[in-house]
């Protein structure tokens, strides 16, 4: 049996009252290489949607064989260096003389986003009934793995109270990453569901779990953009979901057909 990570749904919505084009969450899905990435552009930074897009679109170049402790830090630094070079190219394409003073001023402090990237790989026999699942994260975009009807893994945040106003960020300026890089490694089996979310939906998910509820059932019921809009609207309205840019990638691990 060959397992694959199959996309079930992906979608994103801006904060209430904002245009879809103003949503600063971005994600990228490469089913061929089984890589999925999500980034949440920082509200306080300028052009953070562009930086988030550069990060997720560059994740396909991340060498997932090196996503192991001791190797991943160097690999991440090198990958981030390439992302920053892409940002500098983009910045160079701006007509800076035509920018208002505040845009020039804010550009000097760069941009920022949270980031999570996950990669699945087949394992050789006798473990061919499993997929390796490796992830890197900076900040509070989340990964959840659900088996049958229980939450088996959550990464990098495992408690709703750990979401705060100042998550770690990947920056365009050359700040050192330090200890902020989080690394995850596990295996996934047939039938498991994997969810990637930005912080608002991640916090909502964990809060429901902590109350003994089963939020994955609500996520599993989402298969179209209107389903997702409805889910987000209902939970924003009852204040269980923070009114923030909100993104979801839902993946199912199943045998290749």
């Amino acid at each position, binding site marked *: 049996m060959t397992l694959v990570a199959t996309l079930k749904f992906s979608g994103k919505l801006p*904060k*209430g*009252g904002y245009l879809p084009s103003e949503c600063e969450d971005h994600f990228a899905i490469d089913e061929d290489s089984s890589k999925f990435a999500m980034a949440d552009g920082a*509200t*306080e930074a*300028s*052009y953070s949607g562009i930086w988030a897009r550069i990060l997720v679109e560059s994740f396909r170049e991340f060498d997932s064989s090196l996503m192991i402790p001791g190797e991943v830090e160097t690999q991440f630094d090198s990958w981030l260096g390439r992302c920053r070079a892409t940002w500098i190219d983009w910045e160079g394409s701006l007509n800076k003389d035509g*920018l*208002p*003073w*505040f*845009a*020039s*001023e*804010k550009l*000097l402090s760069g941009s920022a986003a949270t980031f999570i990237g996950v990669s699945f790989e087949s394992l050789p026999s006798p473990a061919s009934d499993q997929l390796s699942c490796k992830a890197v994260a900076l900040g509070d975009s989340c990964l959840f793995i659900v088996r049958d009807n229980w939450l088996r893994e959550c990464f990098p945040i495992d408690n709703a109270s750990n979401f705060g*106003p100042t998550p770690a960020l990947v920056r365009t*300026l*050359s700040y050192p990453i330090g200890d902020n890089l989080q690394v995850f490694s596990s295996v996934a089996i047939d039938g498991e569901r994997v969810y990637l979310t930005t912080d608002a939906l991640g916090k909502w998910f964990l809060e429901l779990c902590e109350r003994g509820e089963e939020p994955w059932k609500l996520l599993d019921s989402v298969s179209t953009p209107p389903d997702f809009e409805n889910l987000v609207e209902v939970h924003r309205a009852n204040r269980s979901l923070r*009114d*923030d840019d909100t993104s979801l990638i839902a993946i199912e691990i199943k045998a290749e057909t």
Partner: protein
Amino acid sequence: MSYAVEISRTNPSCFLFVIDQSASMADPFGVSERAGRSKAQELADAINKLLQTLVTRCAKGEEIREYFEVGVIGYGHTIGPALKGSLAGRELVSISEIAFNPVRLEDRARKVSDGAGGLVEQNFQMPIWFDPVSNDGTPMCEALRRARTVLDSWSATHAMSYPPTLVHITDGESTDGDPSEIVREIKFFSMQDGPICFFNLHLSSTQAKPIVFPDSSADLPDQFARLLFEMSSPLPPPVRMAAQSEGYKITEGTRGFGFNADLVETIRFLDIGTRVSGLR
């Protein structure tokens, strides 16, 4: 919980600065790195820097998100709106109007980190909206009455917003009576998310040690200082967090008050005092 509402374009917040422009503001700060400059000149620089900071907080690329409405009221020879140029005469303006309407842009240089432990000089354009004035008496009561009218009107149309922040900056005592009753009225008006925040900053002409964000009046030197302390609001949670992160010792009783502030403390006080709830 009060002061928890996020600031958004739908629910912006408001900053109103009431600034002493009396004759004594022509004196220098007690301690100033830049000799020969008056408190009025240094304060104008601090206010312009603050407006620049507020605008850049709201900047998203080439756009400005309307998170704040801002006003500056001066009092001295006259009492009234103190912004200049095309914003002259306006009591409150949106942050995008501030952004797009400085009186002028001055070319300046500053030292910034080079990312490798050193400093490099960086040229930038400093926007100017507000020029120094120092003339006549200190009609504090009348100025605060004017502020109350502005904030009453704003609050009535922004019931769901993060409460306004009123920052009063002076270097001396009122010459038109005791402002306590007017301040009580201002602070009595409560929005859904909490009462209006009233902060006071006293500027020093002496070399006395600044007292910033105190939690009691025990160390304050005189009746005037104690009056300003009593009038000042406790720090709301977001400002408390900002003050803590800047190294101030903060308790539940800490008030939005600074006494004998020099230029450095003035800039820090204004920066911390305006770090209100999260922007959405």
